[in-house]
Structures are given as C-alpha cells and as structure tokens.
C-alpha cells in the first residue's frame, strides 16, 4: 500500500493529539475543581434547614 511512507505523519499526529487531549482534559478538570473549591467555604455546610440526609 502507498501508506508505507506517507502514513507516518498521520500516526505521529494521532499520538500527539491523544496526549494533548489527555493532558488538556486532566488539567481542565483540575482547574474547574479548584475554581469551584475557591468559592465553596472551607468545609461547606449543606444549606441551612436541609441538614442531614434521610435516604442514603
């Protein structure tokens, strides 16, 4: 097949994209979590009045 020579860049691109997506997604999860955490009080109480759960 003519793929022998011309296929390599596609392969490299595939691996690169995979790793970029992985790192990007993991990093984004971390960022989103940290920014949510910053707004939450240190140990967020559940909203008043709705204290503890009954059905687990």
């Amino acid at each position, binding site marked *: *097949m*003519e*793929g*022998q*020579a*011309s*296929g*390599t860049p*596609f*392969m490299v*691109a*595939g*691996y690169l*994209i*995979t*790793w970029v*997506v*992985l790192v990007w*997604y*993991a990093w984004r*999860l*971390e960022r*989103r*979590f940290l920014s*949510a*955490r910053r*707004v*939450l*009080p240190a*140990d*967020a109480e*559940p*909203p*008043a*009045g*709705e*204290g*503890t*759960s*009954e*059905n*687990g």
Partner: protein
Amino acid sequence: MTTTELPRFKRGRAPLLGLVTLIILVAGAMAGLLAVPADALQGEVQRLMYVHVPAAWLAMLAFFVVFVMSVLYLIQRDPRWDLIAVSSAEIGIVFTALTLVLGSLWGKPTWGVWWTWDPRLTTTAIMLMIYVGYLVVRSFAEDPEKRARWSAIIGIVGFVDVPIVYLSVLWWRTLHQPPSSPRSMAGEFVYVLLLNVAAFTFLYAYLMVRRYRLAVAERQLEELRLSREDRGGR
C-alpha cells in the same frame, strides 16, 4: 430533609492512581511505538490502533457506566448515581470524539478518505450525538431532581439505541459494499494492544475520580448559591 449527602474530599489516593496510570500509559505508548515492528501492509500508521482501539473501548465502557448509573438512579434516587453518570458521560464524549479523530487519521492514508460510512465509524458518530444530547438536556434543566431523572432516561434509551443503530448501519453498508474491518492479528500485537487497553482503563478510573470530585463540588456550589438566593433574595 432529603438533600444530597455528598462526600467530602480529603487528600485521597487519586495522586497515586494518577501516577500508576501515567506509568502504564507511557509503557503502553512505548510498546506501541517502539517494541513492535510496523505492520507489513499498512506500515507505521497501523500503530494508531494502539490508541484508537483503547480509546473506543474507554468510550464504550464510559457509556455503559452511564447506563448502569442511570438505572440505579431511577431505582434508588440517590443523587450520587446521577453525578457519577454525568461524569462518565462527559469522559465518554471526550474519548468518542478522540476515537473519531484517530479513526479519521488512520483512514486517510489507508482508505484515502477522512470519512467513510463504515458501520463502526457511523455508529460512533451517532453515539456521540446521542450523548451530547444527554449533556445538553442537563444544561437546560434547572431543577436538580428533574435534571437527574430526565438525563437518566436519555441515558437508558440512548444506550438501548446504540446496538440497533450499529445493526442498521451494518445492513445498510452490506448492501453497497462489505464493511471494512481490521484484519485479525496475532502474537505480540495482541499483547501490546491489551497493555494499552489496560492503560486506558486505568485512565478512565483516574479521570472518573477527578470528574466525580468536580461534579460534587459543582453541585454543592449550586446548592449553596440557590439557598443563599432563597434566604437573602426576598
């Protein structure tokens, strides 16, 4: 009363899991890139299989988890199942999209086209649309209970639909030309592929832990904001 009792996250074992995942991932990539020879027919591009197939596997696993969690949620109505489901759906969408891109990159040099109406490819694309619908519905529903219930229903109906979609596209294709499929492989190729599948399974576990933590935090945030509005608003 019945609000979410959501877990608090302390410094857990997630970093360890992350480290293990990273090691296996790197090992898998090295094995795929260096340890095995290039395919006799397709050449270097065939190495894409070691990421393409595991990514597809991860996506299927993620959507299966969405299905199971949706059923569990509808039976038990525990908000945690809903948060696990949405976490899994989002990860599944990321990896479905990745699978499609990788398939496209693989398809161009081997088939000569970026896209072909191959049953697997087509079904994957439709699956992506189904679960994007799942996420979009969630963004349009404000009531957390309804959001959870409606998306759980979509998670179930969508999952039932996927095999039927696959079957229908398969039939549709066989009418025109036989579906293309990877040739059977032997020996070392299989081991390397299995190693990469294992790596992506670990990756799924790690991302789920992180995404679920985020889902809980966002949910707490939402609850907090609205209860403040409730008290202070009027």
